[in-house]
């Protein structure tokens, strides 16, 4: 008997393809003696499909032919089990039912990584790998992330946020505000995307409009922050939960453009379709020991402050001029699960996945020991609902 593990990937997100790369890579690393892997591909339309063909990276080049070999799937709860029900063709064929033990969302971006899929899985009551709804949502919104970090006393760059509608209503006012409160050069970002999509560096007021317009096509809320001139980007992965976690070695991605853009991150690298793992980078980052230790402890503090779970990659900005370190953003489901950082830290990819599964079951156990519902039906003894509403009942009628 093996643990049934469903890998969710794809989704209606601009990072659909990145998710496929991360997921297929992971599925080839999961220990098949222990786990029965069920790939659950979420099409751009939102439909769920499964099939053996989804393990094969090369088949994704021709999506229509790949989809022909998949079958639609639905998920529901029955008793204390969550069932994956796979449709079968044929007039009287019954769907194939698989009890789901654990879900592994390897999705990136809005509509999935932002707490959406976590909410779906929590609602079903199935254990799943990674952050819960709240931490996922915090991680996805750069403005909220900064607010939470600031509240926890952790260093972040000051920023200004505004709504895209407000910008188009009065461009001059927003430009003036950005100039006076931040000044140039500055960075414009949509609040809700990873993988550097829609991010630009703005040197003069003239460039501002283009940058904001681009960002507005991805999000309704825009974030502007000071651009650190002499910048080094340093990333650190964290593994664990809010009670206990550990930091990986650090990496320093090579900056080809001024900002690590989406193309740079995933498309322009010489070896195609290998994801974050093949990006140009230095591991471990060349930093003095005390700086490394500082960044690692900041990474753990940030991870715990937002109540993260599983593996996350936290990106830092290091101001070469001042030596000051800032938390930039968190990836609650990092590309390639940041396995390359864990391998460099002495933890193999399959072992990393075992740890993630363990963490997910641990969280589920804690969830189940907490009191969520009172077993007795409070309505069973109630009478006289109606005209007076339920306020009285709410007030404390249990004392009889």
């Amino acid at each position, binding site marked *: *008997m*093996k*643990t049934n593990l469903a890998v969710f990937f794809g989704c209606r997100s601009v990072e659909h393809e990145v998710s496929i790369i991360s997921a297929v890579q992971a599925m080839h690393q999961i220990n098949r003696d*222990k786990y029965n892997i069920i790939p659950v591909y979420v099409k751009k339309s939102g439909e769920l499909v499964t099939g053996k063909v989804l393990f094969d990276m090369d088949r994704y080049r021709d999506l229509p032919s790949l989809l022909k070999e998949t079958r639609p799937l639905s998920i529901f709860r029955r008793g204390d089990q969550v069932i994956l029900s796979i449709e079968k063709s044929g007039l009287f064929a019954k769907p194939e039912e698989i009890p789901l*033990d*654990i879900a592994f969302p390897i999705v990136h971006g809005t509509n999935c990584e932002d707490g959406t899929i976590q909410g779906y899985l929590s609602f079903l009551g199935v254990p799943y790998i990674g952050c819960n709804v709240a931490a996922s949502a915090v991680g996805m919104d750069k403005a909220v992330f900064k607010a939470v970090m600031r509240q926890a006393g952790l260093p972040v760059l000051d920023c200004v946020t505004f709504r895209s509608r407000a910008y188009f209503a009065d461009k001059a006012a927003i430009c003036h505000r950005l100039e006076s409160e931040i000044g140039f050069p500055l960075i414009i970002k949509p609040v809700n995307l990873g993988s550097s999509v829609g991010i630009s560096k703005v040197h003069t007021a003239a460039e501002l409009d283009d940058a904001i317009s681009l960002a507005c096509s991805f999000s309704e809320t825009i974030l502007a922050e000071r651009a650190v001139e002499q910048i080094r980007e340093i990333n650190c992965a964290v593994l664990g939960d809010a009670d206990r976690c550990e930091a990986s070695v650090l990496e320093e991605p090579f900056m080809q453009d001024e900002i690590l853009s989406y193309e740079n991150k995933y498309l322009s690298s010489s070896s195609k379709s290998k994801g974050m793992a093949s990006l140009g980078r230095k591991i471990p980052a060349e930093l003095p020991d005390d700086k490394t230790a500082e960044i690692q402890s900041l990474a753990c503090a940030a991870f715990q402050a937002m109540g993260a779970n599983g593996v996350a990659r936290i990106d830092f900005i290091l101001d070469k001029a001042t030596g000051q370190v800032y938390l930039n953003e968190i990836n609650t489901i990092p590309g390639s699960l940041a396995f390359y950082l864990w391998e460099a830290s002495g933890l193999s990819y399959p072992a990393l996945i075992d740890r993630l*599964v363990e963490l997910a*079951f641990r969280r589920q*156990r804690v969830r189940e*020991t907490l009191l969520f519902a009172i077993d007795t039906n409070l309505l069973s003894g109630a009478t006289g609902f109606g005209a007076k509403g339920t306020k009285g009942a709410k007030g*404390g009628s*249990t*004392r*009889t």
Partner: protein
Amino acid sequence: MDWMLFAAGFFAVLGALCALVRHVQILQQSSYYPSRYSGWLRTAFGANAVFSLFVMAILIALLFLSPLACLIAAAISLPFRLIRAVKLQKSAIKKLVVTARVKRLFLAVAIFLAIFLALAAWLDSKILYAVLYAVCFAQPLLTLCGWGLTLPIEKAIARHYKNDAKQILREHKDLTVIGVTGSYGKTSTKFILARLLEEGFNVVATPESFNTPMGVVRTVREKLRPQTQIFICEMGAKNVGDIREICEIADPSIGIITSVGPQHLETFGSIEQVAKTKFELADWVLGKNGSAFVNGDNEIIRQRTMAPGFQRYGTDATFPYYAANIRYHAGGSAFDLILDGERVPVETKLLGMHNVLNITAAAAVAHTLGIEADAIRYAVSQLTATPHRLELKRFLAGSTLIDDAYNANPEGCLEAVRVLGAFDGMKKVIVTPGLVELGEKEYEANYALGLAAAKVCDTIILVGQKRSVPLADAIKTTPFPAEALHIVDRFADAMEVLTELADLKTVILFENDLPDNYAG
């Protein structure tokens, strides 16, 4: 062939199946033990049976007089039997659960009656018809006949499930199986152990108080998953060999024996036999080089566990695992666990010496399996009491309530009073109607409770003038001040007294058989 007689027989058969529902319900609730079912029969045999015999006699008489009248009578009886069956099910507190076994039993009876009917019709024998009618009004006979006919099938199915469960367990290489047995305390210990082990493992335990071989088999087949790391198996026994039978299925490598006491003496015969049966668990785990954790505070267990290999726990500092420095306060109990030399101070909402021992047993096993001291301390602090079993609550005017309303066991009541007595510096009050349904021991038990209460309490409130006589008798033999003894008629009156005296420094014990919803 006489069609009228055949039709009459057909109606009688249908009616018989309707009336069977009630009997199968009882058989099911007797766990399919014919002896327990016939126990019910003896109590229920009355007016209904006489009426059934009367109808049966009329039908048989009509059979020989007029087939048409017989048909009409049989047809009329059918809706009555149907309505009665439905009514009985509707009013039953625990209704018949239509399981596969129940379906098989009904099918067997239906086939049996159908063959009978076919035979009577084929031979056109009025005698056979008469016997058929007789059978159709003899539900106990039909019930036992269905039970007997399906018994070989049921046994084969049970054997199949058992083998299936065994195979699931044998294929599960990394699973640790823990058996928990004892005359009392095994269910609580199981739940506490599960909570402690959940700090580090995926745990499955037999639910509620499932503790029979088939209960274990069901849990294994329905609940065990590949990621399960620990299976905790409660083992109950009524006869010698019962524990061994469960061990053969579950194959535990760790065992806990919580107690040996005079439970189920009627089937065991002697306390020696009880001890022997409980120790079948120890024999099993020691036989495969596992560990047997035993309650060394229990006199019978202490004598039997001098041999090496046993891990004793209790309150004795010579044991490898023991509890010391036990205190009770308004928030619960606090004590130090000494786990193989490591001192772990813990606090819990649970009260009572038995719970201290249950926690010590669970902590001993958790410690052995590598749960860290901090995690044990946290899990112990999170344990919750079973409702109305020494359950601590806030009460009137900030006072503390020990709700032990579901306790009906004399030894347990005395322990509750001891717990009350341990609340140093608090005003101690007991509210109780005394114990009932203890037969000849009742007066003696209540007298003992009265003496114990008089020793520790500042105020005693007895509910029920008549019921509480033995308690009052006992209290009056002590120097307990008469003005602090209140004897009231109803619980509401007791509440009035409590409203007068309750304050922050008061602790109140509700002992046995008080209304369910007094303390929202």
